């Protein structure tokens, strides 16, 4: 029996060692750059003169102005979610069940806003509905002082979330299930209500929660479009930190947000688990048909109109506004440092952003990739799965928390990174890594474990198994993940605005700073810089798309 227990111990010991090896770097990274800053926030908020004061939370959230912020944050998130569902669910149906020329292009158009930086959306909606914007010019209508600008910008961003989550599943639902219900005597509407809707409901819930989360923690959009009237928790945390200099209140607000986000994420995890239960899925290509009848054509047309007005028009107006000055004046102004807003020419921000983004992508891919590899192992225990949820926190906990945490935790020895350029990429990687994990994990999990075993039996060592079996299968996902991390990093605003050095702003930070200054020239420059940012993001994604299709063959 000694041999017995010995062999078993060897096997599990080896598994544990591998897992620990994979996890060490991500765990260290998240402990140092997430858990430690969050702990610093807690201490800053609730500890005065070495004693804990939990009563501070109640004290602060009952202040009238803070109560107002909490109320606004919640109801605008609910309203944005409802509006997004209302406009995007029909689009989800159109993408899932109808087949029409230009569908691929339309899908790309719908997806682009999701990867665009928040400040680009902010400036685009400013150019559409703000002072001197298109609506102002045409009909004298201004929405930038109303909540509508914020709500519409939120729909702009989250349209793709709903279309992809719900439409993606919808396209894979077997239409024959509905047909079976019809054959059993159900009317078309009843069949849809009793068969399709229940299958779809968890996906709708998951998408709605995601949209709620994104809009609840909205920062860039509200910062630009909200003016002095509207402020979400995120904006208030930033204001308390950088304008009021009340770090303790900011810390308490961060904790409140932390709790709210944690609750939403927990519900989301639960709905995702439910969504994965036993649905018969089919190839999406087989379920779409040409539109038939006036109803379907009307639906298709109205979805096209919504996409054109809400997603395409703002970006078009942004580009047009950036070209308003004769001879590309706004763009040329970007190359001069004389505005007084910056120590360097604003165009310098392009290179800063790209450098940071490359570094942040590298960090995010390594950290996220290792974490995904550890999580994908079949013998992953509870502890590891708990880490999975932890990894999602920086995504939901909001960028402002990350930035604020960096600001107050990494400013003294032994870890004083204030002067180091790596601070910004680190924060951006923290926000980007969850995307990498999310992209890689399903693909890694889908690699049949017996393929690895087949390679092992043929003589491949564990390292070669990874290189020969896993890597070729996940290369695509790895590139997509890198693209996500890159786009996130380019557009990252909430965390970066706290920690970017004044002489080295990134593109979004530069745009926001220009918009906060009066005058047509600053405004025009902001539009021009936003356009550049949009083009850089789009170009990055297009290059990636190319890379991806070029290499799908064997090596």
């Amino acid at each position, binding site marked *: 029996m000694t*041999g*017995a227990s010995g062999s*078993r111990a060897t096997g599990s010991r080896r598994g544990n060692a591998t897992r620990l090896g994979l996890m060490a770097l991500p765990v260290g990274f998240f402990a140092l750059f997430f858990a430690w800053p969050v702990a610093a926030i807690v201490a800053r908020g609730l500890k005065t003169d070495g004693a804990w004061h939990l009563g501070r939370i109640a004290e602060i959230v009952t202040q009238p102005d803070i109560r107002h912020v909490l109320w606004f944050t919640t109801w605008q998130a609910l309203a944005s979610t409802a509006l997004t569902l209302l406009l995007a669910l029909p689009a989800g149906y159109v993408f899932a069940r109808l087949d029409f020329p230009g569908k691929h292009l339309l899908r790309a158009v719908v997806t682009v806003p999701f990867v665009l930086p928040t400040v680009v959306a902010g400036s685009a909606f400013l150019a559409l509905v703000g002072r001197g914007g298109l609506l102002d010019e045409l009909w004298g209508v201004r929405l930038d002082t109303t909540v509508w600008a914020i709500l519409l910008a939120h729909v702009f961003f989250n349209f793709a979330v709903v279309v992809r989550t719900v439409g993606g599943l919808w396209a894979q639902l077997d239409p024959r299930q509905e047909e079976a219900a019809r054959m059993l005597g159900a009317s078309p509407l009843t069949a849809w209500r009793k068969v399709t809707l229940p299958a779809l409901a968890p996906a709708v819930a998951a998408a709605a929660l995601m949209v709620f989360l994104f809009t609840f923690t909205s920062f860039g959009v509200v910062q630009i479009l909200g003016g002095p009237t509207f402020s979400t928790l995120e904006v208030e945390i930033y204001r308390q930190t950088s304008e009021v200099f009340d770090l303790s209140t900011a810390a308490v607000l961060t904790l409140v947000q932390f709790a709210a986000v944690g609750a939403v994420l927990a519900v989301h995890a639960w709905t995702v688990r439910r969504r994965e239960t036993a649905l018969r899925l089919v190839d999406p290509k087989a379920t779409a048909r040409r539109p038939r009848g006036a109803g379907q054509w009307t639906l298709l047309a109205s979805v096209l109109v919504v996409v054109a007005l809400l997603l395409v028009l703002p970006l078009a107006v942004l580009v047009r506004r950036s070209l308003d000055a004769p001879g590309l004046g706004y763009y040329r102004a970007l190359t001069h440092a004389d505005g007084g807003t910056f120590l360097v020419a604003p165009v310098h921000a392009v290179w800063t952003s790209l450098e940071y983004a490359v570094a942040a992508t590298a960090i995010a891919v390594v950290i996220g990739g290792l974490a995904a590899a550890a999580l994908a192992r079949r013998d992953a225990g509870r502890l590891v799965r708990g880490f999975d949820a932890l990894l999602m926190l920086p995504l939901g906990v909001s960028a402002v928390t990350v930035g604020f945490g960096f600001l107050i935790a990494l400013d003294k020895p032994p870890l004083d990174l204030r002067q180091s350029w790596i601070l910004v990429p680190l924060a951006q990687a923290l926000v980007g890594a969850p995307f990498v994990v999310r992209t890689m994990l399903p693909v890694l999990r889908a690699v049949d474990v*017996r393929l690895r*075993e*087949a390679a092992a039996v*043929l003589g491949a060592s564990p390292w070669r198994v990874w290189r020969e079996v896993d890597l070729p299968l996940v290369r695509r996902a790895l590139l997509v993940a890198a693209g996500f991390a890159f786009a996130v990093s380019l557009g990252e605003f909430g965390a970066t605005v706290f920690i970017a050095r004044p002489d080295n702003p990134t593109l979004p930070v530069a745009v926001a700073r220009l918009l906060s200054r009066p005058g047509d020239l600053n405004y025009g420059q902001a539009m021009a810089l936003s356009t550049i940012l949009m083009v850089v993001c789009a170009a990055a994604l297009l290059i990636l798309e190319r890379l991806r299709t070029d290499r799908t063959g064997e090596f």
Partner: protein
Amino acid sequence: MLLSLDAATVRFGGRAVLDTVGLDVAEHEVVCVLGPSGSGKSTLLRAVAGLQPLSGGRVLLDGRNQTGVPAHQRGVGLMFQDHQLFPQRDVGANVAFGLRMHGVAKGERDVEVGRLLELVGLPGAARRAVASLSGGEQQRVALARALAPRPRLLMLDEPLGQLDRSLRERLVVELSELFGRLGTTVLAVTHDQGEAFALADRVVVMRDGRIAQSGTPLEVWQRPADAFVARFLGFENVVPATVAGTVADSPWGKLPVPEGSAQGHRTVLVRPAGVRLVPADQGLACTVTARTFKGTHVAVHLQPADGPRLEAACPLRDAPEPGASVGVEFDVAETVVLD
């Protein structure tokens, strides 16, 4: 012995999937492990391959204890149930994979891949995509891939499991010829007795993680070790009986049994060929409930007035209609006392 299992045990949770299994496979021998699903036969292969750590006992290859030796260093081949060809590589690259892992030079590899593809009946298929292969072709490629690194022991997990019947029958003959020609040592598992009997020099029947019987196909077929093995081989006429001398007292009445049979409370098997149909007024009175055509004969299902159902094998022409009344007599040559 090339392969020895010494009290090999695998537990999942508290359940023993492999329960103190002892098994020896000699060089050039083809052994088939036969058993219903869940009997632990796939786990047996995985334990030998090093993919499943043992909870107890040892696996020895060439007399060397394999405890702690990882799968890629054991030098055994395993052909997976659903082949597990690498989807992103073509046929040639799949076959060459094991050779690459063993550091065989490119030129040599190409020659070897060509030779193996010819051997399995797919000459010139090296550049084909795996996705374009039919089930039978995939099976051949998987076999070539497993043979390529010249494993000292080749293991096959349900080698023909997913193929349709006619293809299976053809391939089983090809495989058996191929193994004979190459002198490969083979350990295969299957739930199909036909496959096992066609391939194997020796058959091992497994039940609930234990070995129920081991022997040549003929031995196992002629003398199943117990009621479980008999029923698993497809024999339905199995009843408890009390044996005294050359007569067994059973629910079907007195059955003649061979001389020298074990005495006392036993299980008796009458093979369908030993159930002879006679006119209704003779022997055990039965009613025909159904009949199924088996190609060379008809299986006639009979319900005696008293006692469990019977199956008789009957020439095509003489098969009675369902509902007919017949008599049954038992042939001593086809009757076996088990246990």
